[in-house]
């Protein structure tokens, strides 16, 4: 059987080569495992490069009073207490060490006057906490991890996509996929698998996410029987570009506000005074996104339907030094000089707080042998993520997932592969070529994005969500009939046809969870249930596959221990 397919064998297989995947790979290598990393793009191009503002870590280099307790409290409050407390604790405690480690592997962060890592202010963080490199922190992080991994010697399978996890006797035994380049199939045999595939933003029309963000890992895990959690919590970043149309959704870093940027409406009012007079522009992302959305809806938006974000009161040289990418992005794509005038910004689908349910200590999923970290995993951020907590999440839980997966691989014998699953996975993949008459996957993707944008956006209500579920059902039928033209040689239409299956699964999980949660909390805002509901504050929504459909159940939020409750009660 194995002679028919190109087959690679590793102790640990990591799917995804962004910050979480690479950090997991480095850790698993350090524990002596043989490691393979599979990624849909070229190495170093993962969405982590788009992270701009910084890595949140309570290093207290700038504000000496900062410590893990305050970071923990900020994270829990930002997530409206729906976070997994243990993940929030580990994250706050371990992120400074993970940042120092990056520096020891060659990363060069901006410096304080006395030569230490400089930290900047960000929304929802009590202290100046974000370690950064101008506005290209993600690039620095991914390059550092990439170089480290290469020097330690991992095997990277670039431009290779996994379409199915292979299971035997209730545990993971590997994965099946295809090479994007020539379309040939490939089998990975592994004792454990780490999912680090990032988010799901490509299901929305206005998004800061790249083509890769199609929810593959969450969908693979769910299909294999693992649980998804908190899927209703999709973060709309308050500031994406709104004009010209081609750049709509591209991220404008929160660092603009961190460095003193001011939001105004077309009447020149500093409208954040109405929504969060204390934190103003540095309120949490859910609040700022809703504020901009509301200003626009009530007729106070800018010419192109956004808000003005202005940093031009700062010296031009300072803006160019601290926000070089923003300066170039607006100059080249929008003909705006941000040192002289305001940017136009509006909300853009940016980040998934929910994802695969994991054990906080080991990042293990509910399916034995499967691990998940980073945006693909749920728990740390609760109902809303603070800016800067994503990069630290990737490092802290990427590291833990790598360790967990290496340990599992060490404790379990090598599995043997089962040819029927592989043959079925192959049949699924070639089917779109064999069908005739169906429509192009691009048309279906367009309609999916419209559905999610219009019906499952920043503000939701029961009617819209029910309509979205019906619409998703018919999109599923259309995908099952879609036709792909051309050959298997580097064929984006074919790749999209597969990615649509993942996007539809996660979209349904988001919509079902959003419909169930009859309250407004963090990034989930229900017009028909505008308030926080204490009873819902004790529940996480969990999605599991049941045959061909998804079912939802509520799971109690783990009880917070007394000493941490004490920390949460303190005033910062």
């Amino acid at each position, binding site marked *: 059987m194995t002679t028919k397919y190109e087959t690679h064998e590793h102790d640990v297989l990591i799917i995804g080569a962004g910050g979480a995947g690479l950090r997991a790979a480095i850790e698993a290598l350090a524990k002596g495992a043989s490691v393979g990393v599979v990624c849909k793009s070229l190495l170093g191009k993962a969405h982590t490069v788009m992270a701009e503002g910084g890595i949140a870590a309570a290093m207290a280099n700038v504000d000496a009073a900062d410590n893990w307790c305050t970071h923990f409290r900020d994270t829990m409050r930002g997530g409206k207490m729906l976070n997994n407390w243990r993940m929030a604790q580990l994250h706050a405690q371990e992120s400074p060490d993970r940042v120092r480690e990056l520096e020891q592997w060659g990363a060069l962060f901006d410096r304080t006057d006395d030569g230490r890592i400089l930290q900047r202010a960000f929304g929802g963080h009590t202290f100046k906490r974000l370690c950064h490199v*101008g506005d290209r922190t993600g690039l620095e992080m991914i390059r550092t991890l990439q170089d480290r991994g290469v020097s330690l010697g991992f095997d990277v399978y670039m431009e290779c996509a996994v379409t199915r996890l292979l299971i035997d006797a209730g545990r993971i035994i590997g994965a099946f996929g295809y090479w994007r380049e020539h379309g040939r199939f490939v089998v990975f045999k592994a004792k454990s698998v780490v999912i680090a595939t990032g988010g799901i933003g490509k299901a929305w029309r206005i998004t800061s996410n790249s083509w890769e963000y199609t929810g593959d890992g969450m969908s693979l895990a769910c299909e294999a029987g693992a649980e998804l959690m908190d899927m209703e919590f999709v973060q709309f970043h308050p500031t994406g570009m709104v004009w010209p149309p081609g750049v709509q959704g591209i991220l404008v870093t929160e660092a603009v506000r961190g460095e003193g940027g001011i939001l105004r409406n077309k009447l020149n009012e500093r409208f954040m005074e109405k929504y969060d007079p204390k934190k103003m522009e540095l309120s949490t992302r859910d609040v700022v996104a809703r504020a901009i959305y509301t200003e626009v809806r009530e007729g106070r938006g800018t010419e192109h339907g956004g808000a003005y974000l202005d940093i031009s009161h700062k010296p031009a040289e300072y803006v160019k030094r601290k926000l070089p990418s923003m300066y170039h992005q607006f100059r080249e794509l929008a003909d705006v000089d941000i040192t002289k005038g305001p940017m136009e910004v509006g909300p853009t689908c940016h980040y998934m707080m929910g994802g695969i349910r994991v054990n906080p200590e080991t990042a293990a999923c509910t399916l034995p042998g499967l691990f998940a970290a980073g945006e693909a995993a749920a728990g740390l951020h609760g109902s809303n993520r603070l800016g800067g907590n994503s990069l630290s999440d990737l490092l802290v839980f990427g590291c833990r997932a790598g360790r967990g997966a290496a340990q599992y691989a060490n404790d379990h014998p090598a599995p043997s592969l089962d040819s029927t699953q592989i043959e079925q996975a192959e049949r699924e993949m070639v089917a779109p070529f064999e069908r005739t008459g169906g429509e192009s996957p691009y048309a279906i993707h367009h309609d999916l994005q419209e559905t999610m944008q219009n019906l499952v956006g920043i503000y939701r209500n029961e009617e819209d969500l029910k309509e979205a579920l019906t619409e998703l059902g018919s999109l599923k039928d259309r995908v099952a009939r879609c036709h792909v033209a051309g050959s298997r040689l580097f064929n984006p239409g074919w790749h999209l046809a597969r990615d649509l299956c993942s996007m539809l699964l996660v979209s349904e999980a988001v919509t079902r969870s959003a419909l169930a949660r009859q309250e407004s909390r963090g990034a989930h805002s229900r017009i028909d249930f505008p308030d926080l509901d204490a009873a819902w504050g004790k529940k996480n929504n969990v999605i599991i596959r049941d045959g061909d459909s998804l079912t939802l159940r509520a799971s109690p939020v783990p009880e917070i221990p007394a000493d941490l409750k004490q920390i949460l009660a303190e005033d910062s």
Partner: protein
Amino acid sequence: MTEAILHVFRGTNEAGGTAEYRVPIAPGMVVLDALHYVQSHLAPDLAVRWNCKAGRCGSCSAEVNGRPRLTCKTRMDTLALEKPVTILPMKAFPVIKDLVTDVSWNYSVNKKIPAFEPRAGVEWKMSQQDLDRVQEFRKCIECFLCQNVCHVLRDHHKKEQFGGPRFFVRVAALEMHPLDGRNRAALLKEELGIGLCNITKCCTEVCPEEIRITDNAIIPLKERVVDRFYDPLVMLVRKVRGAKD
């Protein structure tokens, strides 16, 4: 509605030619938007690499009207639209399909470069002034446009002997890291063939990150190689002492 005519390379390394597509123009549209329009409306199997669409990842390199560019940062309204816009894959690398080229050679060169290794017992403090020049190199997004235009690679095909500007930038970042303890002069001379660069500055010209590759990376590295291997005084001392290199 205004329309642009694109002539896009379709094919593989063995066979191919340009195909014509008509694309409606929207305000602020970039070449990558036009290619996406072709994919979603006219040719769903058109192969194009892209990720961030914001000039941050360096995936979407191609040659637009003969100029190597990131297609996500090339505005359609900066091109002469009365004539067809020609979009070809990077010339220095073998074509896989359409605009996607095989850039794997770059990854194999990268593997030859020893990673950062701090000097023993360093204190992890650095001044921003010392970092400024290194951070310039760290801006590199690995779009490989500099590799594509370098005549040593593009015209003379010296991929066996020469590392190319991207990897001189990487070595410069390591060599000028204030706390790095390694010396990569021999690597530059022997494995990466820095002597083959005759500083025509084509790389600097196309860099979308505006890294001054030739002036700030390559020339200082050449000086290091000269100091290490060709300093007459040092050579004399070595000869007298009988040292091997």
